[in-house]
């Protein structure tokens, strides 16, 4: 069979520590809409997972915000690492990611995350993960071709795939989204400061209505990296972002291009799409 179950001394109890003694762990198919892990290379996962998400709805909601990072190709092992925790391999004991894999992914991806105002979160701290041989480090064979040389120095928030699905996912992972024109772009304290005009909100999130008028966006650490979208300011943009401390960070930028097929599909999909929300998961 596809899976090779090795029996250990009944170690399944290790899954049941902490809060989660209420439900015995179960093995389920990785659903297609768990995009982070659907194609990771195995088909079944354990619930609750190793991040203590108890329901599939909770896993999906939490995993969705990591999909954009995957698209940044910061490390070849990112998906395997994240999925070993979000959608753990179904064996009769929990298998954690190897510490060295965690460290390698963290070292490559945290700088990229910082462009988006994120730090390596507590739940992924590498010193929790084991050293030794019983841990996940393997890269699925088909991922080798997906790894492309890291020659580009484009600002990560400007390095967006023009695919309707990717834009939708990004929209869900963002706190706010606006359609806007850009008045000017300035350098400030190592960031790019973006002054918009003619804003139309698609999703306001943390932005208060009265703040909208004087809204300024920042491309964090972006003073010196190229962002080709900003080369031509004559058209409209789709801008997504999040609030970090008191700053509004730009986390994705697209030309508002109605002639582009993918962008048109995105506009159509957006109308009926519902993002997995915190509320719907924890009601």
């Amino acid at each position, binding site marked *: 069979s596809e899976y*090779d179950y090795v029996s250990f001394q009944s170690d399944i109890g290790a899954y049941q520590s902490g809060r989660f003694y209420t439900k015995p762990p179960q093995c389920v198919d990785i659903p297609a809409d768990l995009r982070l892990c659907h194609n990771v290379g*195995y088909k079944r996962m354990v619930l609750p997972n190793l991040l203590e998400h108890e329901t599939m709805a909770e896993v999906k909601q*939490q995993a969705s915000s990591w999909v954009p*990072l995957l698209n940044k190709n910061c490390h070849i092992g990112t998906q395997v690492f994240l999925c070993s925790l979000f959608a753990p391999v179904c064996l009769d004991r929990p298998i954690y990611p190897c510490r060295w894999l965690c460290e390698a992914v963290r070292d490559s991806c945290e700088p990229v995350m910082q462009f988006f105002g994120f730090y390596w*979160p507590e*739940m*992924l701290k590498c010193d929790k993960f084991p050293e030794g041989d*019983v841990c996940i480090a393997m890269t699925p064979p088909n991922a080798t071709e997906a790894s492309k040389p890291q020659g580009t120095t484009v600002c990560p928030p400007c390095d967006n795939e023009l695919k309707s699905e990717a834009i939708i996912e990004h929209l869900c992972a963002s706190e706010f989204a606006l359609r806007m024109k850009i008045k000017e772009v300035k350098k400030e304290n190592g960031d790019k400061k973006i002054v918009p005009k003619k804003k139309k909100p698609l999703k306001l999130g943390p932005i208060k209505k009265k703040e909208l008028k004087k809204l300024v966006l920042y491309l964090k650490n972006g003073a010196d990296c190229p962002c080709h979208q900003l080369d031509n300011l004559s058209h409209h943009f789709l801008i997504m972002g999040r609030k970090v401390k008191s700053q509004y960070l730009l986390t994705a930028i697209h030309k508002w291009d109605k002639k582009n097929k993918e962008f048109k599909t995105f506009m159509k999909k957006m109308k009926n799409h519902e993002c997995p929300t915190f509320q719907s998961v924890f009601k």
Partner: protein
Amino acid sequence: SWWYMRATSGSSRVMCDNVPGLVSHQRQLCHRHPDVMRAIGLGVTEWTMECQHQFRQHRWNCNTLDRDHSLFGRVLLRSSRESAFVYAISSAGVVFAITRACSQGELKSCSCDPKKKGTAKDNKGTFDWGGCSDNIDYGIKFARAFVDAKERKGKDARALMNLHNNRAGRKAVKRFLKQECKCHGVSGSCTLRTCWLAMADFRKTGNYLWRKYNGAIQVVMNQDGTGFTVANKRFKKPTKNDLVYFENSPDYCIRDRDAGSLGTAGRVCNLTSRGMDSCEVMCCGRGYDTSHITRKTKCECKFHWCCAVRCQDCVEALDVHTCKAPKSPDWAAPT
């Protein structure tokens, strides 16, 4: 005693009437709350295992007797440290078992802590109470009503000792009730946080009570018979968290049916240890036998993509030392 409920986890009615030594209030509770009794009965196995874990290196190892109505035999008739520990861990075990069954939705009379709702604040900011907070107050209340009922019948010194140690056990569980939280923000950030109160693993309670066992305080009744005073004036007064006892323990070296001691003949001892499990101490100076055994273990396990863990079989040779029996055979011991 209610400890016997371990052996009889059948339907509620049969169980209540078949447990010898329940006092009438316990029997009433038993009939009224069959689901709680089931939880308590399952809990007995758990706390006896914890007791055996804590005493694994001792001459008395918390062994249970299957057919004995008081589960541990005559050992606990003595008001010893060991009795103090067993009463404490058993009442702790009841609190733990009921509280957990509550959270799992198995009991009609209780649920997750209804007071833990809405938003609250701690040193990390605001959070939402969510999920299920362990309703330990219910567990404690029920445990007190049920377990202490027996001791409230008589007002003798032993009853007071048991009540004290029962309470210490209940308090020990609550000590390890901790707030746990989960972050729901994007990319693992903690902008949204839900928290709940959860009991720690029962091992923590076991370890804590074990420390209390080692520091247990010997007491005598005070003059008007209402409380304790320290037996040795140089020691501190017991607090509500301390375990108390009246009588020194026997040495548990030889089998003694009257005292309920099994003796240590045949027990495994540790040749390199200098503690209670050393062959010297465990075998009470009688010496030990050594046998060579081989053991198969899984070793050099590796994870293979995807998805299997493959191991080698390793053979390990080791010596096992067991205590010799006393020269004069057990059955010749005077009864």
